[in-house]
């Protein structure tokens, strides 16, 4: 019996998040405006069965399927929200789960580094996969658990403000988002990201991390 960790529906992939997924995804690449669903379960290996259900039940395209240390993650997308929602329903039915069985996400840490120095920018840029962070921009970093919700936070932040999507890590123990931009935009984006996470329902789950 699989444990449902994340069940994240994105109504409309924003341009930069779509471009970012297009950079990191090993499967079919999504485009802006498509709907997307991210499902994260435990144990990870069970994600193979989840993908089987999604692609056979509907017309969705899988972008990422990742089996990592403990968890498994699947990203699917389609121009039709209906198809993506239907795939989610089929997945939940097969796993004998409900959407409310997902874990209620929580923000583990959130910080803004203002006016980032040239030297620090270089270290960030060597590890990111999205936009570059430019010296003297501000950097917003947020950690969220479970990891899949990082995509939702990034998508909502991109809707709200003119930021650069530097990195979005949506697999593993924690999700992490890195956004760069002018301070005025980061101030708006950081609130949007936090509100997005706090707006989601789910079951309470104890975290492996004690901050």
């Amino acid at each position, binding site marked *: 019996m699989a444990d449902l960790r994340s069940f994240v529906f994105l109504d409309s992939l924003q341009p930069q998040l779509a471009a970012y997924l*297009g950079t990191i995804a090993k499967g079919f690449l999504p485009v*802006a405006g498509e709907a997307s669903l991210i499902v994260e379960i435990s144990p990870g290996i069970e994600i193979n069965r989840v993908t089987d259900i999604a692609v056979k039940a509907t017309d969705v395209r899988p972008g990422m399927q990742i089996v990592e240390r403990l968890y498994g993650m699947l990203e699917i997308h389609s121009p039709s929200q209906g198809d993506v929602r239907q795939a989610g329903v089929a997945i939940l039915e097969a796993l004998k789960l409900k959407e409310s069985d997902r874990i209620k996400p929580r923000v583990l840490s959130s910080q803004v580094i203002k006016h980032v120095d040239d030297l620090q920018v270089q270290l960030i840029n060597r590890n990111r996969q999205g936009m570059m962070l430019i010296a003297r921009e501000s950097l917003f970093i947020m950690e969220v658990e479970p990891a899949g919700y990082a995509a939702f936070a990034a998508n909502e932040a991109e809707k709200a403000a003119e930021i*650069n999507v530097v990195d979005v890590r949506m697999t593993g123990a924690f999700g992490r988002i890195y956004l760069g931009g002018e301070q005025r935009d980061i101030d708006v984006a950081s609130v949007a990201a936090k509100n997005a996470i706090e707006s989601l329902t789910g079951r309470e789950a104890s975290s492996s991390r004690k901050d």
Partner: protein
Amino acid sequence: MAGIDLRSYVFLDSLQPQHAAFLGTVAKGFLPTGGQASLFIEISPGIEINRITDIAVKATGIKPGMQIVERLYGLLEVHHDEQAEVRRAGEAILREIGCEESQRIKPEILSSTVIRHLDDRQTQLINRTRHGHMIVAGQSLYTLEVQPAANAALAANEAEKAAHIKVLEIVSFGSLGRVYLAGEDRDIDVAWPAAENAIRGLSGRAGK
């Protein structure tokens, strides 16, 4: 040192923020920061670049960012907070190989293309191979090819000074240099003449 062919001698007075961030992403050596002066030297045969780096680091306090030996040519990028220090490194290198700056190859633009309003699917292909910013669907793309390759660094730096563009990729070594810039049409239309003019403004001997 006889037998060394000076291909590029490209002095950048002030690395622009995105260009510096880009070099910080691709460079394997010391990373430059915005506002520093930078010098790109390209020679043939490539293996001799080891000797060039030796001269530059022993003669001055510059930091080497990239040293690349590729199929035919060698590239060295050095940078420093002081323009004078970078210029002095350049002079020491030229003295060693018995050349003058004017003996570099006059760069030639091989292609210069604007593709407007990129489709989502095309942006994905570009984003998977670029090292700088991502291009987002609906933006325009500018590509420049220049020979010798190191001159691409100057074209990109001058374009970034002129317009509010995003630097996607700069390839400054190999047989051709390439610059990929993205942005709104209004910015791309300012950036590409700036890039072309920077290349046309350089003197040098005729290339082979």
